[in-house]
């Protein structure tokens, strides 16, 4: 792709300790490189560790072993504070269940990440949030409460929220999982267009072949490893 390297995983493993003190190896050897402008889809059946991988990519979780580089630096050595700062500054999350903050309007939800920024972004948070909502076609619904919005609109608010701090990587975990087919496609096209426009990399975790087909790179997570998938294989 020719862009700057953002994330690089080499032989990343992740195990969890079971109640009987035995270890369950979920990720056994993940190798992945993410550069600016990438659109990567990762498909896999339930329980294969897709969300766990996304958590590692989003600096929410740490690998058991292997190398995880974030912008050329070893991310496994990042302190919790620096990891949080990196998440706030460079990573955007879109969740399956939207995860909008209850009791807050659309614009307040989009403003929420800007509460953790400093300087101009913090003081101009309302303007920036309004512009972000305008870009996803919700300029007229700024003060709407989440429960008054449709599923597609709620996910668009979540996309605006993920993009408002201009992240370098957007991580989407089953972004269309709670939407019908038509709305899901529209949301994915919007997410793709928005990240292309901003130059951010987009990593989508999905089990929907149609969603995966929109990505420029596709992988299947199986047996704890990523396997490249061709466009035809997805279809």
């Amino acid at each position, binding site marked *: 792709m020719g862009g700057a390297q953002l994330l690089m995983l080499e032989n990343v493993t992740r195990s969890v300790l079971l109640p009987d003190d035995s270890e369950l190896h979920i990720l056994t050897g993940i190798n992945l490189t993410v550069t600016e402008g990438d659109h990567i889809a990762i498909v896999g059946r339930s329980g294969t560790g897709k969300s766990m991988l996304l958590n590692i990519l989003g600096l929410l979780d740490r690998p058991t072993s292997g190398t995880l580089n974030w912008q050329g630096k070893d991310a496994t050595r990042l302190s919790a504070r620096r990891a949080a700062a990196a*998440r706030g500054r460079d990573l955007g999350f879109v969740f399956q269940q939207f995860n909008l903050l209850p009791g807050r309007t659309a614009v307040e939800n989009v403003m929420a990440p800007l509460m953790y920024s400093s300087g101009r972004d913090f003081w101009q948070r309302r303007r920036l949030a309004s512009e972000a909502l305008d870009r996803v076609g919700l300029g007229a619904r700024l003060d709407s409460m989440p429960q008054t919005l449709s599923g597609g609109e709620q996910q668009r608010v979540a996309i605006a929220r993920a993009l408002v701090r201009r992240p370098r990587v957007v991580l989407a975990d089953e972004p269309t999982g709670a939407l019908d087919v038509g709305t899901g496609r529209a949301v994915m096209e919007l997410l793709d267009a928005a990240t292309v426009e901003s130059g951010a990399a987009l990593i989508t975790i999905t089990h929907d072949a149609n969603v995966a087909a929109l990505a420029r790179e596709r992988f299947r997570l199986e047996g704890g490893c990523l396997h490249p998938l061709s466009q035809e294989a997805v279809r």
Partner: protein
Amino acid sequence: MNTLARLGTGFVAALLEAWQELRIHRLRVLLSLIGVTIAVASLSTAVAGAGMAQQLMKEQYERNGRPALISTQVMEPNLQAGPQDSAEIAAAFAKTSERFKIEYTSIIGRSYGPQASLQGLSVETEVQVVDPAYGPMHRIFAQHGRWLEAADAENLSPAVVVDKTLLGALGMDDVSLPMTIDLRSNDSSVSVTVIGSTSTRDNGMIGQLWMLPETYERWFSAGTPLDNVSYTMWVPIEGSEELATHFAWQMQAELPGYYVESYRQDYLAWGTEEGLAQFALVVSGIAGIILLLGSLSLLNVAMVTMKQRIREVGIRRSFGATTSRVFFSVMMESVVATAVAGGLGVLISVAVVSNPRLINSVLATGLDEMPGFPVEAALLGMGVSIAVGALTGVLPALVAARVRIVDAIRI
């Protein structure tokens, strides 16, 4: 500078988040804070009320003399008689007080038994013979009319001041002052002019009447000489004990053959301050228990609520909220809420305590000087409410800070 700006922004943001959270959950917050509001109102009212009660007790004590009050008595040791009154002793007291540059001095002489009468009503009264300075020295204010002045000695009609008990017993009305009544002692009866009235003294057991020594001398002493005469002085507290000793020595020198005794006679010399302090301590203790119960209820609601907000905390962590920021934000929610509740509690307390009718009905007696709402009670109320917010905010904040992000998002 950047670090300072970041910290400043973080603080403002945490306050905004806290306020937003309170706005969103206003009903829950309102209900959970009722206890704190009531507790802070009770605490502030108790502290302010203790101040009022102290003022009342102080007024009661000071009616027997404001600190430092030195009493001087002169006796003839050989006769084993009580304190004597004579022109010689009065002159010696005046000379010695002048030497010590004492501004407030008064003779105190009492005469029991004179009958005050008006329009057929006749009651026994206690006559006190005092100088004009006796009023300020014993916290006597004329509620109607005025207190005695030196010039009253020249009045053709003897001027007297009476208390409310005597006023009531004679069926007199405040507004009708000045008024003439008859004062009969032994066989002589004199018409005197009541120029002022004061609040009830000495629990109102017997009506009291004050007049100047010159007045008593001219009209009554021939029939009923004063006995139990003493002299009082109002001096600064510091050094008053030494002053009493030296005063007695000096006056003794002026009165060979007499025994002169001077000593502190105000309530501070008896150590009643401890009683007032204990009273305040008991009231504060009760208010503390009320506050503890209010805090426990607040903590209970905060803990239950936090369990329901784990997912929200996870979402915020995904935005980049650090552990310390989550801790601080959650604690600030509690602090901001209790500060608002505390402010409301203090306002309620001010409204209650500043109502003179209510206070006088509770204390069942009139205050000469209605004290203002004590600033320390307001500060204590606000300080305690903020401290309660911080303390009850710590546990939910710890729960929020210890949330594992991946688990929280998955909930």
